[in-house]
């Protein structure tokens, strides 16, 4: 039995209550909307990119504690990061929260590792990945709404 505290760690409550980088970027270079049709979570992501570096990143929207905290933690982590590194980080993050046996990778996630508790809650994985799927949509700029489905 997984402990509720594995899922709802203190950092998650903090970021849920006080999401970092919350809001719009007026002249964003990249933008995408994300939607989790199962639970109605919606978020919009805005990025400024300079020389393949994410110089600013913000989000807005509404969602559960996991999806809000995940978006907040993601923006905090990605600001100043190279686009390619951000994408590699997503792959790592995704592997750690959906598959067993990635504990080594987990140590490279830094603060994002507070979200690894969702692995015990398959129904909630999409909450944790919505922001990242939206990031993918923004970077690859197809102009479509990213969906967790």
């Amino acid at each position: 039995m997984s402990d509720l505290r594995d899922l709802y760690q203190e950092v998650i409550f903090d970021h849920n209550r006080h999401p970092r980088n919350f809001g719009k970027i007026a002249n964003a270079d990249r933008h995408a909307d994300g939607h989790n049709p199962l639970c109605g979570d919606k978020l919009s992501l805005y990025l400024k990119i300079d020389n393949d570096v994410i110089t600013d990143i913000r989000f807005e929207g509404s969602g559960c504690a996991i999806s809000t905290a995940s978006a907040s933690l993601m923006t905090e982590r990605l600001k100043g990061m190279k686009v390619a590194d951000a994408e590699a980080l997503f792959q790592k993050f995704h592997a750690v929260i959906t598959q067993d046996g990635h504990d080594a990778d987990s140590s490279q996630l830094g603060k994002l590792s507070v979200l690894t508790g969702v692995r015990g809650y398959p129904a909630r994985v999409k909450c944790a990945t919505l922001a990242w799927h939206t990031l993918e949509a923004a970077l690859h700029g197809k102009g479509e709404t990213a969906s967790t489905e």
Partner: protein
Amino acid sequence: MSGVQQPKKETMNAFDAESIRRDFPILHQEVHGRPLVYLDNAATSQKPRQVIAALDHYYSVDNANIHRGVHTLSERATAAYEGARDEVKQFLNAVDRREIVFVRGATEAINLVAQSYARPRLKPGDEILITEMEHHSNIVPWQMVCEQTGAVLKVASIDEAGELRLDEFYRLLNARTKLVAVVHVSNALGTINPVREIIQAAHAQGAVILLDGAQAVPHVAVDVQALDCDFYVFSGHKLYAPTGIGALYGKAALLEAMPPYQGGGDMIRSVTFAKTEYNVLPYKFEAGTPHIAGGIGLGAAIDYVSNIGLNVIAAWEDELLRYATARAHEIPGLRLIGTARRKAGILSFVLDGVHPHDIGTILDHEGVAIRTGHHCAMPVMDHFAVPATARASFALYNTRGDVDRLIAAIVRVKEVFRV
């Protein structure tokens, strides 16, 4: 029909939920180390051992394809399946067994009426009238028909309690309205619609009316003759029967005039490459080998609830809902979504500072199963300006103790989230 002893009517006068619970094997388990409290009945209900036994008996003893078989097993399977049709006929008080079409569920029944009744008849400018509280399954099939025919979909709104605005509904009803499709009991709000008045008003304008009874049949006794409704649809699995089986009731004259919904075996009388003659009602609408076991299970489920009595069940669930509503009011920051004067079985709510999905996960940890999300009624969520709700829904086997566990678990959510 299941061959298993069922509760006798006379012993059910004082509702004995504990004895009912013994009929539902699945309820006797622990989830996350706590005894399961199952309050997701509006999504699907659990099955009594009488229904499980009927399925077991069918597959162990009678399994064969139905109709046209001359061997004993086929005759037994046919008798059991057609016997279930008689059960449904009696359950809805239809005039004739030919008026009962077995389908996969309410969704398929609505699509059948949309494609076979509405699509050939509707002209550009004709109107279909629905309400804002419909399940997506009573919205999308009509949108599709409107796209196909040029007809227009009209939507009567709901008020802050989640009741249909009847004045608006009557205003939208006019000579162009060819079809009215209304939910009998709302799955997201629990509202019981005044269907008798709605049907009379629809008929006064010459419109045909379909009632979506998916959420109604487990909680409300339905008499299609007294209602005078034209089509009535429901799913078996919300009525303690298996998934994948449901029924469409349609007045014989309407069904007779409709073309088949799907072509295939069993729905024909004769086939040549020059001309195919369709089968009589209801088989004209039942192409292919049906869900025989499901039909038999549905018959057993109807037996089960009929032996207890739907009025007895309704009274018990009403008591539970009143108790749950009163207890929910004790929780600061909890807002009920759907406070209609007449409700059945549903307690939908939101909690300040906690998203419904987080409520659902923590309740599950406490052993309490509820549903969170938009409940396939996104327009209702938009109306109340919430992305989702948490929904507890009751069945005949729930108890006041279940309600107490629900309330305690919600209090726990508030502790965890410190709201």
